[in-house]
Structure formats: structure tokens, C-alpha cells
């Protein structure tokens, strides 16, 4: 029987397009210190450190060894995980598993990326087989193509993507740790942004950020001693798709749907809109957010655009999605999926500050998205 696991500390660094005043170890150190301060423990109590990022996306490799001076991992146990965009959540999931196993009581897990440094699209395209590299225009190409198909099959219009961006920006302006805080006033402001990849505009996509996020994960007996507000990890799930099937959008069943069905079934969730209070989903493009509403069964298939139109996913409303501003506002890829978990944990604790949602949050769902559309899900609860 697995041990119960809680998140007892959350730390975030500020995020920006460039952070020339810190090197990688120093940037990570900010998030680590913030998490230690939040948990009110000393680094000596941490037994293992996981350092997670996507190798190559920022032309940085071997973080687990090269970043020891910033991570606090000196002479400690730990490892590095490297997946795709899911890596922040995979790093959190690995920490949960380590503590659940009973072999560790306190584990620090860090997600980081310094995207000023490399070219993540170039490296992402490099993940395609050599013979495909000429034809891949990165994730943006895939999202643009999916949007063309979505608009044809449903009533969605470019304006709906503008509504998603507007919500993300309003929320980000209430989050001091968000990167893009543009102060957009209406969807017309979004429409003015130049076409990046037809028909999608620059503002339909996430930025490239430099930043880090850290979580301190503890066993039940330790969690209850060090904090009054442990956030319990109820469940997690990871589902992969085939590389050769990189078609975002469309009607075929996706990894998100499979992952959601499994986690809902295991946890008795029959009506996600009613049973889950807040969502932090991984949406690299405003279009993806609409698909995720559908994939996580918050609305019917092909009706995600109606959901954003209705406003029901705003901070003050019944189904808040991405109160932090989401990936659209902040994307240091290695940190991003972990931030979805960190932000959800803060919502449960009531510690999200200005971007705390209005309703009481007892259960949250955080999602991660990687490369050729694979999915992670983490279900957090105030009490088990």
C-alpha cells in the first residue's frame, strides 16, 4: 500500500524573456529558496533533489550535475528527468512516487529552462526523425493546422482564440510571477498582433521564458509536522501517443481523453465540472485550451469554443481554468508543467493572492502536454 504524499512547499522564480543577471544555477536557486521558505524547512532536511528540464531546448545538458550549486543537491540523492513539455509534471510525479514508495520522506523537485539561450523550436523540430526535419514547422505548425480544421468543423472563429488570450492576460496581470502581462483591453488588441503562422497570430501562442519552479514533496507523517496546509496528491496519470501520429485536433481519441477517463474512473469523478473546483491546464496555444475543455470532458466534443464564449472559465465563475494566466502568459518549458501543479496547490491553500479564484477550491486537476501530444494529469486535494 503506497504512502500518502503531500506538497508542502511551492517556489517560483520570476520569469522573463531574458534573465541575464543570473546564470542557470542562480535562477533555480531563487525557486528553491522560495520553496524552502514556503515549507519553512532547511535544505538539510531535503533528502533527494530532482532537476528537470528538456535537454537541448535551451542548449543546456546534464542539469543534475551541472546545477548542484544552485539546487542544493550537494552530496544528496536524486536524478534528472528529461521528457518533453511534460517534464515539469514528470519531475513532480517522480517525486510523488519516490515519497509514496516509503524510501524518501522529503524530496525537492525543480523544473527549469532558460530559453533566451537556444532555439527551442529548432530543437523541437530536431526531435522529428531526420528525414522529416524539412517539413516540420514546430509545435506552432501543428497548432495552426489543427485550428484550420477546427474552424471548419465547428463554429469556432479567430475571435474565440482572442477570448482565450484575453482571459489569460487578465489573470496573468494578477500574477506577479507571470511573464507576459500585456494589459490587453479587448479581443481587438489580440487581432492586431501579426500573423505568425497562418491563420494564427503571435498572441495565439505562448512566449519563450526563462524561469524555474520548485516543489517540496513530503510523506504524510512529515507533512503533518511541518505544515498546517498540506496539499494531498490524490492521483496522477501519464499517457503517450505514437510519434507518427502527430495530428493535433481532429476526431480521433487523444491521450488527454484516455488519461482523463482513467483518472476520473479511479477517483469517482463522474461530472468533472462539478467534482473538480479548479483547472490548471497546459495550453501552448489559445486554441489548445478550447480542445482541452473538450478532452477533459468539461464540455461536449467540438464545443470548446462555446465554453470560452460563455465566460464560465473566468476566475470568478463556476469552472475556473488557468487562473494563473497559464502557459499563454509564461512558458519556461521545463518549469511550465510543474507550475500547473504549483499554482493548483496554491489555489487549494487559498494562497494564490490576487489570482485566487472566487469559489472554494478543494480539488484541482493539473495537466501537462508534451511534444507529439502526450499527457500528464495530477489530481490534488485539500483532504483525502
Amino acid at each position, binding site marked *: 500500500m503506497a504512502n500518502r504524499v503531500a506538497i508542502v512547499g511551492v517556489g517560483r522564480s520570476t520569469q522573463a524573456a531574458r534573465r541575464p543577471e543570473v*546564470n542557470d544555477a542562480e535562477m533555480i*536557486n531563487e525557486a528553491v529558496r522560495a520553496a524552502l521558505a514556503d515549507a519553512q524547512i532547511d535544505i538539510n532536511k531535503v533528502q533527494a533533489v530532482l532537476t528537470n528540464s528538456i535537454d537541448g531546448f535551451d*542548449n543546456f545538458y546534464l542539469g543534475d550535475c551541472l546545477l*548542484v550549486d544552485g539546487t542544493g543537491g550537494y552530496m544528496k540523492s536524486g536524478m534528472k528527468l528529461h521528457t518533453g513539455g511534460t517534464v515539469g509534471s514528470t519531475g513532480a510525479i517522480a517525486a510523488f512516487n519516490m515519497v509514496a514508495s516509503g524510501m524518501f520522506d522529503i524530496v525537492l523537485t525543480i523544473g527549469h529552462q532558460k530559453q533566451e539561450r537556444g532555439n527551442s523550436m529548432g530543437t523541437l523540430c*530536431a526531435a522529428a526523425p531526420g528525414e522529416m526535419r524539412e517539413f516540420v514547422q514546430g509545435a506552432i505548425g501543428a497548432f495552426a493546422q489543427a485550428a484550420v480544421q477546427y474552424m471548419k468543423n465547428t463554429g469556432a472563429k479567430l475571435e474565440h482564440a482572442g477570448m482565450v488570450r484575453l482571459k489569460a492576460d487578465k489573470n496573468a496581470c494578477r500574477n506577479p510571477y507571470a511573464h507576459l502581462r500585456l494589459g490587453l483591453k479587448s479581443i481587438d488588441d489580440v487581432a492586431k498582433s501579426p500573423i505568425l503562422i497562418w491563420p494564427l497570430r503571435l498572441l495565439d501562442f505562448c512566449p519563450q521564458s526563462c524561469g524555474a519552479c520548485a516543489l517540496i514533496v513530503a510523506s504524510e507523517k512529515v507533512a503533518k509536522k511541518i505544515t498546517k496546509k498540506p496539499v494531498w496528491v490524490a492521483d496522477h496519470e501519464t499517457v503517450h501517443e505514437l510519434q507518427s501520429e502527430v495530428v493535433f485536433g481532429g476526431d480521433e481519441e487523444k491521450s488527454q481523453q484516455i488519461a482523463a477517463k482513467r483518472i476520473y474512473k479511479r477517483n469517482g469523478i463522474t461530472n468533472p465540472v462539478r467534482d473538480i473546483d479548479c483547472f490548471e491546464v497546459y495550453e501552448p496555444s489559445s486554441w489548445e485550451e478550447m480542445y482541452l475543455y473538450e478532452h477533459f470532458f468539461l464540455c461536449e466534443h467540438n464545443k470548446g469554443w462555446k465554453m470560452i464564449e460563455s465566460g464560465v472559465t473566468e476566475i470568478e465563475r463556476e469552472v475556473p481554468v488557468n487562473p494563473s494566466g497559464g502557459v499563454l502568459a509564461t512558458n519556461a518549458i521545463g518549469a511550465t508543467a510543474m507550475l500547473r501543479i504549483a499554482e493548483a496547490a496554491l489555489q487549494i491553500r487559498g494562497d494564490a493572492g490576487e489570482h485566487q479564484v472566487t469559489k472554494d477550491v478543494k480539488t484541482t486537476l493539473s495537466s501537462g502536454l508534451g511534444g507529439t501530444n502526450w499527457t500528464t494529469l495530477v489530481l490534488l486535494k485539500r483532504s483525502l
Partner: protein
Amino acid sequence: MMTTKPAKPTTAVIFAGQLMLPYRFEAGRTGSRFLRELRDNKKIMGLKCTKCNKVYVPPRSTCKECFSQIDKWIEVGNEGKLLTYTVLRVARDAEKDVLKKQLPVAYGIIKLDRADTGFVHMLGEVDLDKIKVGMRVKAVFREDERKGNILDINYFKPVSKARKR
């Protein structure tokens, strides 16, 4: 109905290509100060952790022993001891471009007198057969274009002690 099928290739089919990926490393506030001092003042600076009494060269902003943030800058001087070394005799073109030196070239770990850590650099003005571990060495800076990187120190050369045995 197709009756012909593709034949198995007689030799392996290889798809060759290349990636060209940009890379930018930011030294950060601490690292930048160290490099600026090399470039502008020909000085080697270290950071001291006052709790552990340990001086890091090159400087790092967190002490690895006690994890405190350190910001006490001190000049560590230009002289120190050679802890260990090797001689590079074969290198690829890319490596030679970086070192900007003719081979063979010796390099090793040098611990400056007021530092507690060593760092890697090259040796120059030295007879390769006469290098000894523990030898005293002194930094020789470039006099022409210094750029704010570790190669602003051109090399370390041996110095004899004032006292004779």
C-alpha cells in the same frame, strides 16, 4: 493485385544531416563581475563565504557547504600553486579554435594563494618536460583585446620562489 514488393536494401540506408542550433550563455550578475574584472582591471576576484571561511574562484553565489548566499568579494591575487596538469597533444580543429594555441599545450588546475578552490587554465612560457605538481605559477594577462572571458588570462607561467633552498 500487386505482386512485386520492395526489396530489402543490400546496404544500410543512412539519412545524414546536420543541426545548427544557437547557444547563448548568460554569466549572470556574479559571473559578469568576475569577467569584467579580468577584462578591465586584470584582477582575479573571488567570493568568500564568511560562515565557512571559504573563498570560491571562479565565484559562485551560493556556498556549496552551507547553502548561504555569499557576496563578499575579495581579490585573490595572481599567484598560486599548480595542483595537477596534463599535456594536450592532439585536438580537433574546433578545440584548437577555442584554445587559440599551438599544440602541444599544457593545462592544469591552479589554486591561487587566497582561494580555496582551483580552476582550469593553460600553462605558458614553460618547458613541458619540467612541469611539476606543486609548482608556483603566475597569471599572464593578454595585453591586446580582452573580451570578458577566462581567456583574458593568456596563461599561467612558472615563477620561482624568492627564497632559495
